[in-house]
């Protein structure tokens, strides 16, 4: 019994680690030059408010109004997001993660994407 439980825990652990690896996959693809890009609207109250409106329109249905995820879609209140640079989040917004269901938002003008990053940063 104990052995079976151990196997189940081991398998579950592997799945969780693998899932975490998959979720971090996009981070590995961010070019170095993109990682260090600075948000021109960082900390600006207007940009945070505008980013909040954009988030509500485009992102909240999947990621939740409180960023904690919804309908099985990932939470944005994670160490990965908190530890990402503004440039990395901006890259993810532009490119998406098509393999894992995150659409690209390159159709939004660049300033609007930075406004969303400013909003996300304000909620971490």
């Amino acid at each position, binding site marked *: 019994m104990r052995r079976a439980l151990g196997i189940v825990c081991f398998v579950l652990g592997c799945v969780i680690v693998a899932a975490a690896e998959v979720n971090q996959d996009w981070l590995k*693809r961010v070019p170095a030059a993109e990682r260090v890009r600075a948000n021109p609207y960082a900390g600006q*109250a*207007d*940009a945070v*408010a*505008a*980013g909040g*409106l*954009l988030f509500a*329109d*485009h992102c909240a*249905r*999947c990621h939740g109004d409180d960023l904690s995820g*919804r*309908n099985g879609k990932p939470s944005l209140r994670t160490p990965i997001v908190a530890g990402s640079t503004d440039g990395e989040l901006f890259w993810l917004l*532009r*490119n*998406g*993660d*098509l*393999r*894992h*269901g*995150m*659409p*690209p*938002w*390159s*159709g*939004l*003008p*660049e*300033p*609007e994407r930075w*406004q969303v990053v400013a909003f996300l940063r304000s909620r971490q």
Partner: protein
Amino acid sequence: MRGMAGWRAGWLGRCSGFWATAAVAFLGCAAGLAQEPPYFVTYSHAMEEPGNLEIEFKGTQAAPKNDNAFGGATVEFEYGAKAWWTTEVYLSGQTTPDQSTEFTGFRWENRFRPLMEEHWVNPVLYFEYEDANTADRSFLEVSGNDGVADLATRNAAARSDVEREMEMKLILSSNTRGWNFSENFLTEKVMNGDDPWEFGYAVAASRPLSMRAGARECVFCREHFAAGAEIYGGLGTTDSFGLHDTSHYLAPTLGWDIPRGPTIAFSPGFGLNDNSLKVLWRVGVQYEFQQFFSRFHRGEAR
């Protein structure tokens, strides 16, 4: 016999009924904004977000010289199956005064993004099966030797002339500095006939009127509007490839994303040669249901 003015009044009356119904439906539930450019013919590389269902009405109206005016209507159901795969069904119909109102057929299209990241130019592969009769007035594309002469066939004769076609498009699209530039190249083949392969093109550019969102919610702010233009037309067939003996249009477009409401687009298309309609009016209303099927899951917040 109804005059043109009477027919137009009736057509507008029917449209008013549609708008009223649509407005009630739209106001009754939450919506999301799409990021698609305001094009009617040209495709960009914007795909439907996975899990979202977009329902769109596209209307066309034109009055060919020395021929009956007509109104076309197409309803689209576009679903984001994956972030890289969008599937869509179209149902089309048309009405011509003093003739009839017809259901003209359906289309089923699939679009695939082969590259998983954004590039300077982003390709999308498009495959469509179409089962429609030649009374179709949706003008979703122009191909082969399409021209105003095709519109002279009466509905009674056109309804029995059903074409089953396979259509393929190469969609190239770029987003840069707020602009979208899209180029489409299409080829189609009638499967139930001996017609040669037909070719066509569409090229478009558009841009939001404002690059930044405002800090306050508003309906008429510039960031909710996008303007652009598209050029589309035929390229002949394998027997007569080229820009001649076909129709070409230049169409300015304007789109308006109403916050938590529908997106409305409008476009007058101006014919560029004698084979084209003088003006082809288009209006589109689209509404996106975000995470459509999750709405039916028990216990999910809406």
